[in-house]
């Protein structure tokens, strides 16, 4: 299990990286944290001619509090975000999602943006970005594109990114402080890819009914799943057990037969998703009360 031959470079300027991508994008892979790419190389399931290592581009190392969203640059490791005081205080949902990614050793290397670019349908961050209606910044010599999460994830391990584009930033919208949130997944062992997972943010209105709901799933289809109909079901409710059951049933319908695997039949994954949805929404709603006090 040794990687095949490739040619390597590690530019220090963003401009250089974009120029290289403009010239070799079709045959090149971007190396960021490498925690998904290098296993694929070691198993010789990927064989790019060129690797462009962006780890030395200092201008990609930023976590910034912007108006309306948290901006994370492509150089930032998952663990840096996990340990960021800003995130710990202001984005508990992001923190909860990151804590469920693999293990500390992986998070010390793996990047936030890399995980988005890899677009694993069972990955935590693509689902979270989808849940929050986040955006990504794709840069090329041709210019900048801001792509909405719903348009970015196009299928299994595939995105709207063009071969000459570099994903430089991901933007997680802020959630209203009174919202209750929950990121929950079922996995076989600690750190495994989830058999099913959910990201949920519920914003209570003045009448303490659900005013706004954002829900997305991971691991249940070929791409992260936005649960628009489910969200509509929740709005205006008090998240009663009956509401939760209806939401759970709606969630089960989102499970695709295409992701049946050795760990979960479709029937099981549906049941799991139903249960997960109920538990996560119940928890999120309880947390909203906690936040409000």
């Amino acid at each position, binding site marked *: 299990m040794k990687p095949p031959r490739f040619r390597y470079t590690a530019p220090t300027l963003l401009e250089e990286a974009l120029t290289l991508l403009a010239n070799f994008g079709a045959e090149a892979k971007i190396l960021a944290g490498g925690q998904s790419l290098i296993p694929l190389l070691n198993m010789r399931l990927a064989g790019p001619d060129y690797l462009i290592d962006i780890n030395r581009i200092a201008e990609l190392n930023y976590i910034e509090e912007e108006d309306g969203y948290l901006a994370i640059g492509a150089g930032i490791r998952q663990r840096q975000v996990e340990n960021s005081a800003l995130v710990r205080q202001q984005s508990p949902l992001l923190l909860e999602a990151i804590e469920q990614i693999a293990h500390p050793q992986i998070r010390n290397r793996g990047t936030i943006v890399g995980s988005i670019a890899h677009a694993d349908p069972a990955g935590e961050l693509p689902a979270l970005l989808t849940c929050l209606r986040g955006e990504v910044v794709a840069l090329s010599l041709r210019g900048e594109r801001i792509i909405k999460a719903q348009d970015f994830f196009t299928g299994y391990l595939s995105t709207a990114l063009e071969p000459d584009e570099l994903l430089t930033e991901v933007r997680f919208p802020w959630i209203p402080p009174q919202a209750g949130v929950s990121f929950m997944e079922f996995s076989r*062992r600690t750190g495994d890819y989830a058999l099913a997972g959910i990201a949920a943010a519920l914003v209570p209105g003045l009448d303490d009914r659900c005013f706004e709901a954002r829900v997305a799933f991971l691991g249940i289809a070929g791409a992260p799943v936005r649960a628009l109909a489910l969200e509509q079901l929740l709005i205006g409710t008090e998240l009663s057990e009956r509401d939760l059951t209806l939401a759970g049933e709606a969630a089960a319908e989102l499970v695709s037969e295409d992701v049946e695997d050795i760990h979960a039949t479709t029937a099981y994954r549906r049941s799991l998703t139903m249960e997960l949805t109920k538990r996560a929404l119940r928890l999120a709603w309880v947390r909203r009360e906690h936040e409000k006090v």
Partner: protein
Amino acid sequence: MGTRWFGEPVQRLEDPRLLRGKGCYVDDLDLPGQLQAAVLRSPLAHARIVQIDVEAAMALPGVHLVLTAADLGDVLEPSPLLVSHDALDQPRTQLPLALDEVRYVGEAVAFVVADDRYIAEDALDLIDVTYDPLPVVADLARAVENTEALVHGDVPGNQAAHLVQQVGDPDAIFASATHVVRESFAIERSTSMPMEGRGVVARWEQQEGLLTCWISTQGPIPLRNGLAAIFHLPEHKVRVIAPDVGGGFGGKIMLFYPEEVLTPFAAIQLQRPVKWIEDRRENFISANQERGQLHDVEYAFDEQGILLAVSDRFLHDTGAYTPYGIVVPQITSCSLPGPYRLRHYYSEFKAVYTNKVPVSPYRGAGRPQAVFVMERIMDRIAKTLQLDRFLVRERNFIGKDEFPWDVGLVYQDGGPTKYDSGDYQAGLEKLKSALDYDNFLKEQQAARQHGRYLGLGIGCYVEGTGIGPYEGANVRVESDGRIFVSTGVTTQGQAHYTTFAQLVADQLGVAPEDVMVTTGDSQAAYWGVGTFASRAATVAGSAIHQAAVKVREKATRLASELFEAAPEDIEFANGKVFVKDAPHRALTLGQLAIASNPLRYSYGENARKLVEMKLLKGRSGPALPEEQGGPGLEANEFYSPPHASFASGAHGAIVEVDPRTGMVHFLKYVAIHDCGRVINPMVVEGQVQGGIAQGIGGAFYERLVYNPEGQLVNASFMDFLLPTSTEVPHMIVDHVETPSPLNPLGVKGAGEAGVIPVAALFASAVDDALVSFDLRVTTMPLHPSLLHSLIFEEPGS
């Protein structure tokens, strides 16, 4: 005698080295001029090889050698059949490289040697093999009596072996018993999965004609013997060393794996050291596996819950070849009666070829399957008669006064299945109290009120350990007073450097750290077998003990002569030998060792002191009198057990099942273990705990999933789920000690014990938790998706 080390939790002598990263595993060796190898493996489960084109691979810069079957000359011989048996009509073993047919995904097809492993793998990508696919036999149930798809074209029905054993008259019992039940049980494949894969480094020294191989193996001496035969070398010109071995668990007792022949072959041919290290992907598809069996059982019991008769017909998946004969199913057959007084038993099995990785023992070796079946029977009796599960077992136990107990079956070693000692009742009582059973029943009731499903499971077993034929030991006091010990077994983490040292230290009055144990080197021990079947402490330990006793006798004789004292007054303590009541006038063991060797030239402080003490006197006659039996304080001894010794145990666990998600969590785990007298309780408990973790893996996490094309679809650590620290619970381990009368130490094996009853108790616990769903677990391993379907889907849907 001073401190007694036997029975003490002595800290391991091997640890500081391993903890500093100074261990030496096979891949840690980088010899000057060394090349690296990689193996091209079959991507198909069954196919005819039409053509192999190696030209492009040969042309790749950095490639030194590409071997196919055609290049092997007279080395192209099937691997030896390691354990033959009359019932094994159709044995088949594997060639080092497939010649015209491949029979499992992973079978070796070509062997590349290059400057490094990276280039060697590049070359594999350039080898072009044309295959003509053949029908695949992947499923055990469909393999047997199959007339169209044959793993070996000349083996009808894919049947390798057929064995029947019977005790008493089960049919007569079935005809008259009140309760007769028929059931089927299925156990899937699993695998040893040591953290260090297999590996070989081979060096050929032309001038000396010496072949040295470092192999991550559990049996270096049989490997040495075989390599000498294969390469037509004298045995003393072949040295096989098992250096530090990163776990074996049975998988490394198999020989010959193809690479164990191909690597030295390439080293001889290239006149350069060659290294082959198995990577994880290879380990999944080429290291032997085990466990796959299908049982059809019929059993009869009476109103009191006494098991009257069992008839078990089972199929054993042996994979594509039978290198290890029928040892595994034979152990299953013999282990099924377990601790119970079963007088009418019919056992019949067929060992069946499939297009999958060959089968040889994995820790437990056929026993977990047998215990699963028997313990399911016990639970069923309890349920049918509304009796307590502990009580049913107690009523069926062989009493502690009934030993030796002859089960009436022929064991894997050809000897009787005859239990030497035990007290099963005592073990179960300890278990019951450690589980706080009465209290649990209340907790369980209370939890159900809150929608929580708690269950308690029990698993009892008897394990044949310490089989022969023999092991040997050399014990020698060196002139610095430290003691050299060598034996032919190997060490894969069982603490032999410490436990064997404890045995010697007790005899010679030294501390364990003064005893230097060597294992796994064919140059240090000519005769030997290997470490498997929970036999090292029992068999090699007894040989070492006997050799140490001999050295002590020799030292006593010599000291009594030098001190002019009666032999019974000679004492050993703190590395010294002295006359009772006169410890001031003592010789160190080193000085006595020098005195035992009548050389003119002796060196060092000990030699000088000896002269100063003026103890050496001239003597008439030969310098080395015949009764001294050769120079030095040294002895060689062999120990050969009369038959296997039978350890036993009772494990129990409390689990919580979440029926909605199919997830199961352990709340408590208790293991009561009887391996006779315990040399080092810390080590035994470690062995038991590790075994339990593997058992939990085998019950709920680890399974090898083959598709109908014979492809292993989960050949990675992402999908083959070894339990981690968050899945394995805290474990309570306690002991019962019924010494074995079969060996001088009174010990029985402990290595495999932990793993054996776990699948059985897990099923028992899940059933108990889900009693309201009327669940009956009959397959292993479980996993959440399967458990969920057992709970919620109608049978057959």
